[in-house]
């Protein structure tokens, strides 16, 4: 089995997220990191490989993004991926979720994976959707927000929470699965793996290399167009108590509740 894991570089959780006033899009400067949800996807791939139920020949990390995204790939291979593919092309910059999914699907197509894994959401924007877009372009079945996954012969048995409780779905391979953070506890990379990361093959490809139709990607060709960003309607800020003396704090809470006849 060959597993491809889609990864993404996102601003570190510690970095305050703000808009770039000139583009109306998110300012992506500052510290970046591998999207935490994606580490769960890599771990899920590793657990399949180490679980031994099916032989896994290769785990390939795939990303799309600027030059700095190479760091996310290094992290992905230090966590266990065997090699990585970086779709790096000015032409895809600013793509919306549909165009991004198309470009990633074309990049994946060249790899012919049996299983595509990804994190169910990223901290910096689109959520829950990219897996379904990629699956549609690849003509594969897909399931998102999976929190348990067992490999059976030629199929996966997946569990997730849906609108009415837990669903268990059997999916035949090849398939695209996005995972939630409850699926596993990602490992730490060993120092050897971190140092070896730069030595693992990294294939940098352009839109031409993977036969992406350039007229379908990029900000100007995206069907969903961000026209403006505005401030949300302001809500009166709530009262804040910093707990210094807990007895006093509790007294204040009780008084607040009492005033509103909540006790």
């Amino acid at each position: 089995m060959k597993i491809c894991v889609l990864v993404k570089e996102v601003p570190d959780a510690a970095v305050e997220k703000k808009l770039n006033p000139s583009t109306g899009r998110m300012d992506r400067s500052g510290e970046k990191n591998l999207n935490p949800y994606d580490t769960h996807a890599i771990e899920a791939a590793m657990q399949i490989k180490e679980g031994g139920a099916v032989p896994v020949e290769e785990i390939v990390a795939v990303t799309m993004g600027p030059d700095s995204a190479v760091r996310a790939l290094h992290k992905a291979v230090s966590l266990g991926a065997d090699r990585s593919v970086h779709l790096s092309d000015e032409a895809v910059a600013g793509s919306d979720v549909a165009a991004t999914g198309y470009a990633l699907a074309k990049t994946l197509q060249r790899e012919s994976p049996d299983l595509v894994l990804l994190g169910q959401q990223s901290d910096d924007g689109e959520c829950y959707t990219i897996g379904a877009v990629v699956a549609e372009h690849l003509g594969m079945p897909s399931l998102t927000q999976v929190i348990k996954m067992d490999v059976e012969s030629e199929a996966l048995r997946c569990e997730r929470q849906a609108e009415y409780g837990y669903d268990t779905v059997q999916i035949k391979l090849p398939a695209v699965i996005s995972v939630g953070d409850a699926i596993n506890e990602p490992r730490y990379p060993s120092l050897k793996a971190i140092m070896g990361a730069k030595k693992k093959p990294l294939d940098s490809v352009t839109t031409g290399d993977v036969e992406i139709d350039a007229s379908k990607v990029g900000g100007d060709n995206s069907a969903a167009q961000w026209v403006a960003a505005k401030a949300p309607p302001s809500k009166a800020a709530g009262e804040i108590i910093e707990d210094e003396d807990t007895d006093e704090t509790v007294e204040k809470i009780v008084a607040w509740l009492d005033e509103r006849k909540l006790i």
Partner: protein
Amino acid sequence: MANILVYALHYDGAINKNSLGAVSEGAKLAAEIGGEAHAILLGENVPQDLAATLGKYGAKKVLVAEGPEGLAQPLVDAMAAAIQGGGYSYALFGGGLLGFEIGAGLAARLNAGVAMEVTNVRAEGGELIAERPILGDSAISEIKYRSDVGIIIGRLNAFEIKQSGDADAPVEQLSFELSPQAQQATMVTRGEQRGADVDIEGADILVAGGRGLGKAEGFELAEALAAAFGGNSAVAATRAVVDAGWYPYAAQIGQTGKTVSPKLYLAAGISGAIQHKVGMQSSENIVAINKDANAPIFEFSDLGVVGDLNKILPKLTEAVKAKKGS
């Protein structure tokens, strides 16, 4: 014609509340752009009378398709077939997991633009513009569509349910073919309930716990506080802790859980992610206790307490008991 096709999720003989909201919203928007809202249901022997009731929420026509329930890809096939039949400019989804999956798949199938987590849609010059909060709801972006069809996926509870009449809508059978990928997934069990059954939707006072409680046993503090309030109070939980097995699924608030609007919502150790916020933001009074002063929940709480739960909850429990006793 600028018609809007609205997905309606049904389960166990009832239409999902978010879908009712989406149909109501679709009807309102369609009127503004000079079209009709049509709803679509898919399942095994969908009851015709159930489908027809969507007329009361403004659907002028309801399409019913035969196929496996609870999975997204059959709906992508069905909705694509309907849209390719002509007349539709937009597809609209209420909040919920399936809506995200179907909407995204449909966008890929139709080369259409998609906006998700939408909280408001407005009509302008015969077109729809979707508004989506971003960056932890600190800004709202507006999305326009360049494609023939625009796909709008609402945030949970974003669209208000509005009954606009009493008339049933005509129901039409939609024939379509399942794509190869849609035939690769099979529902084994659906809607399984795990853990104890608790009623949180009817409670007046909810003490909700998140990861900040530290461990499953941390919920004892929340339970003690709820007990101190007495009467119609209960304990709720976030998805993260339910998935981690700390608390039963039935107590889960948010995107894939329940939506509540109690008189008092006391959030203990909950950061306030969007997925949680959508399930509780219409509570009358929101009190949040969290040690992270930067937790997003403080931005929509009425009273925020920055501090250690392990210190505050036991004392608060005692104080509430004392107050009630006095």
